[in-house]
């Protein structure tokens, strides 16, 4: 839970400092998620499933983001996808286009992170925890990236590269809250899996909190 909440907290903090205008709009609501394949467990480990070429997390999570034309951050942002206890953390990582993602190895063994996804193909090779600089990739194309480890076939994670600085991962029930948004008319999108993205038009007003319910 701690790992899961950490990026959300950082995202919220980020929104404050990168606000385009003085307007601090908030949008919150819920999106209905598909039924989980596996029974919920206490520590909520999320896995990537691909069924018929469709990638999703299990239990399902959604990424809600605001679509629009926003300025790119300068300098580029840096995010981390950690390997610890032979899993990727987080399982689903949304990043803004142009973000540099580091892949620190916190296990006491080799990992070999690679991606065959058309969005970004890379192979970091085998490396140990003390590898410096931390192997990283700059993600310069929007889309879904499936991360795998060549040594540990069960390790998988998703990176969602978005052309937006405003995004958030829902909780397990589909609740979300996006803050620090500019006022104006936008399209709010919810990524559910690699082939399903919902969208709703929203009109954000200064200082107001807009309630949204996806159908």
């Amino acid at each position, binding site marked *: 839970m701690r790992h899961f909440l950490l990026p959300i907290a950082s995202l919220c903090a980020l929104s404050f400092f990168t606000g385009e205008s003085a307007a601090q709009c908030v949008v919150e609501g819920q999106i209905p998620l598909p039924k989980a394949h596996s029974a919920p467990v206490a520590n909520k480990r999320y896995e990537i499933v*691909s069924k018929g*070429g469709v990638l999703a997390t299990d239990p399902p999570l959604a990424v809600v983001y605001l679509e629009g034309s926003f300025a790119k951050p300068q300098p580029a942002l840096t995010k981390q996808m950690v390997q610890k206890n032979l899993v990727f953390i987080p399982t689903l990582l949304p990043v803004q286009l142009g973000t540099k993602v580091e892949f620190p190895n916190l296990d006491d063994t080799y990992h070999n992170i690679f*991606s*065959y996804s*058309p969005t970004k*193909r890379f192979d970091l090779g085998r490396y140990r925890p003390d590898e410096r600089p931390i192997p990283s990739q700059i993600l310069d194309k929007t889309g879904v990236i499936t991360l*795998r480890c060549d040594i540990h076939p069960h390790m998988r994670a998703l990176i969602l590269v978005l052309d937006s600085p405003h995004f958030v991962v829902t909780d397990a029930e589909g609740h979300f809250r996006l803050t620090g948004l500019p006022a104006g008319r936008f399209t709010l999108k919810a990524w559910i899996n690699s082939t399903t993205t919902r969208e709703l038009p929203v009109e954000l007003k200064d200082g107001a909190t807009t309630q949204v319910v996806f159908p």
Partner: protein
Amino acid sequence: MKLFGDNYFTGVSGFRAKLLLAMMTLSVTITGGGLYFAEHKVAAETEHDLLRDFQAEVTALDNTQEIRRIALAERCRALVRRPRIRAALEDNALDLLYPSAKDELSDVMEVPGSTHPLNRVLVARFYRFLDTQGAIIAPPNPTEVGLLTPAEEAQLQLPGMPDKEQLGYLQRSHADHATPTIDEVIVMPIISAQTEEVIAAVAVGFKPVELAANHTDGMKSGIWLGAHLHMLTIPSSVHASLSQEIQNTITAPKAADTGKLHAEINGNSNRLFFKQLNPGSLFPAAYQVSLYPVSAGMLARQKHLRWQATLTCTLLLGASAALSHYLARQLSQPVEKLVIVSAEERLLRERAEADLQRAARFSADASHQLKTPVTVLRAGLEELLALEPLSPEVREEISALVHQTFRLTSIVEDLLMLSQLDAGHLPIQLNTVNLTQLIDALVDDLSALPDELNVEVTCDCPTTYVLGERRYIALILQNLLENARKYNRQSGQIRIACNDDGQAVTLQIANTGSPIHEAAREHIFERFHRGTIGENVPGHGLGLNLARELARLHGGDLWLLRSDTQWTEFAVRFRNAKQGSTFQPTA
């Protein structure tokens, strides 16, 4: 003197030779029979051993291939679990599929032109990925994945996507080879780790294990596929016929996965064993064919065993000959001894017979030599008596001399008879003799004699028959009666009694003469013994001895029963005539 006759030696050595011959015949028969059965057993066991060896080799080959196939399958299973292969298939990166596999199979893949494959046991010749319809996903660079002709690729096409591994055999033709070869193919489905759905499959072709071509003495191995037998070490001329035979067997109703056949190749008998390599596979059935030359191996082994058996039998025969010789010697020893003993006995007997004949001749000679002078003497004296005139003194003297000649004749006759008895040369004719009648006659003769003593004779003897020769029995009785009269007192008595107990007849003759001295009694049966009291009694001391010897010759005896002041009584025992004629005289 020569102790043994010639026939002794021929007899014993002949016996030994016959014994040896019999034993040798027996041992040769037993050895020959043993050899015969041993040979049959050897032949049967050789075949059994060969088949067992064959089975063992087949099993060993099967095991080797099984282990190899497990290794191949494991290699393929590891391949399809590789994250890169799954990533290429799942993450929409088919262009990376073959390059990823190339990296993963780099240790086993045969590189054209290179003579040093990295892995000598598992040599992969080609690989292809199949999509979910079983069709080949075209490789971007066919030269890197092992070139296949369209016909060969067509053999890889499966009717559908298998959900488990498949073992197949691919017939490959070569431009530079007249005969096609066989590659072993393993098709391994690629299953999604999360959904457990089959998303693709990989087919990897491996170089099959081949028995060394120089392994021509023992088992030959090959693969039967698509009505063709692929066996390099078998003459290609018989491929077709063998293929047909296998084809007939495996397509027969109730055909099993495995089977045995007899095959004739170039006049040699072979055992052929086949076993389906890929039962249950979607690929066409392929059979492992093992060929074992029965006759060549059998002949070699039989030749070896026959030599051993012959050598053993020769040794056995030699040993049995030695043993037979030894046994024949040992067994013939007692016989030899017996022959020696009998030869000695015969010699003794011959000597005894010679003695007897000499004695008989002597008796006859003595009879002639003694009796004749006595007769001449008596005749001369009687002639003198007839001469006139003779003074009465002379006449009396000559008469006394004539009387002496009679006595001399009597002595000579007794001595002759005794000598005959001693020599065991007195033959007796056993007849039934009426003892009572004989006694009556003798008593009559006795009473007819001039008798100064006036002896009275009483006879209590019912009619009794004894076994014997009449004249000798008469002689015994005459002796006893004469003694009873001679040694009697004046007006004495002679009592004759007869007792028949059924077995023997005992005759007792008693007289009333003076008793015989105690000391003299044991000597009265000795020759030339005469009682001390009868100095004036006529006789020559041979009578009792002769009588006893004659009684004993008749199976009886003669002894002194009593001699006291009242009676002196002798008893003589004869065999009862009712006993039958089984009597044998004692020598």
